[in-house]
């Protein structure tokens, strides 16, 4: 079973890199979102510095959703999902490994470039470090919550929008604790550790629960 899961993981990574798509387009979309906000907010550096963490978190959230609707849809359309169901590997583990591959190829690059974009939003070094750490801890939850939405909408032709409508409300807790871990402490004496710990708990809960929900939805779609 370990071999099967390793093969699945590397297949996901290869496909994401080959189609020249998911990872690089996500970063470009992130850049566009992060640069649009200052145009709307205006050149007030203090305001930008206060809004920065929230802007970057929302940008990461939307960039993560981009391409997530294809997470299972491609496998559903080309019959891979049917074949995976005939393997001895549980579908829940297959979902988890696909999410890990997706996180590595789309979410992790966003976490890595976030400090660069943060500079453009007048974030100082301490704020950049907190932002990056909060994104690193919080993005697994975003990917896995999104995977549930992707699984529910797997058989719909234009499921992407519906998926966003389903997933965004569920991502609100992650957003709240992510932004508070990343930023509010800069003006407020809220401790950094508490929101970060809750963010970590959200990610762990999503890792534990989301694969079961997504696998159930995928089995239903296969019928």
């Amino acid at each position: 079973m370990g071999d099967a899961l390793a093969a699945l993981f590397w297949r996901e990574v290869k496909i994401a890199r080959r189609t020249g798509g998911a990872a690089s387009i996500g970063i470009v979309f992130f850049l566009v979102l992060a640069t649009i906000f200052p145009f709307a907010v205006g050149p007030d550096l203090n305001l930008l510095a206060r809004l920065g963490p929230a802007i970057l978190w929302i940008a990461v959230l939307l960039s993560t959703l981009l391409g997530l609707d294809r997470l299972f849809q491609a496998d559903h359309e080309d019959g891979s999902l049917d074949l995976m169901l005939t393997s001895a590997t549980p579908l829940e583990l297959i979902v988890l490994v696909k999410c890990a591959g997706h996180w590595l190829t789309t979410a992790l690059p966003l976490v890595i470039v976030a400090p660069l974009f943060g500079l453009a939003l007048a974030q100082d070094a301490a704020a950049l470090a907190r932002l990056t750490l909060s994104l690193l801890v919080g993005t697994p939850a975003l990917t896995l919550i999104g995977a549930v939405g992707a699984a529910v909408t797997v058989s719909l032709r234009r499921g992407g929008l519906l998926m966003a409508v389903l997933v965004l409300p569920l991502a609100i807790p992650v957003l709240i604790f992510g932004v508070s871990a990343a930023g509010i402490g800069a003006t407020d004496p809220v401790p950094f550790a508490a929101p970060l710990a809750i963010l970590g708990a959200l990610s762990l809960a999503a890792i534990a629960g989301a694969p079961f929900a997504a696998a159930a939805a995928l089995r239903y779609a296969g019928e």
Partner: protein
Amino acid sequence: MHLEVSEIRVERGGRRVLDGLSFALAAGEALIVTGPNGAGKSTLLRALAGLLPLAAGRIAVTGPKDAPPCREIVHYLGHVDGSKASLTAAENLSFWAAILGRGSALRPPEALASFALAHAADLPLAVLSAGQRRRVGLARLLIAARPIWLLDEPMTALDTASRARLLDFIRAHLGQGGLVVAATHAALDLPNARQLALRH
């Protein structure tokens, strides 16, 4: 290995596609499922593969060993091959070898050579023809040893030489005591072949 299907009923979208269908297959036997479009040929194969729930009846596999669940010992070859266009033929096959469990079967390069695709092993599927892609999908039958082959229109898009090759592999599989259920409009020249005609 013995496959017994008794009184199964399968519904799709609230409509009974199969109702009260029974048959039994012993080792080395093939079942050719025929019928007009929409008669339930693909539904039957998907139900046998465990991809569709049964509304009634049961599908039982009895074997020399304690048989694992039916879906883990079948090769399901549907209308689509489960191949990724951006991966090469060899990468696609190696992946399915890892997922489906190899057993005592051929390695991916040998399986590709068996379908005369050795020259295309390192090409992405996107540049192969429909028939070549289908052959990559068929090569999957050879990389994992599974006793029950469920073939949905296996001859689609194949040229004459490939059809003959596939028939040879099916005969060899039957000769080793395997089971084959094939839904087809084309005539398959197989020993021990039984016919099942589905109607609307």
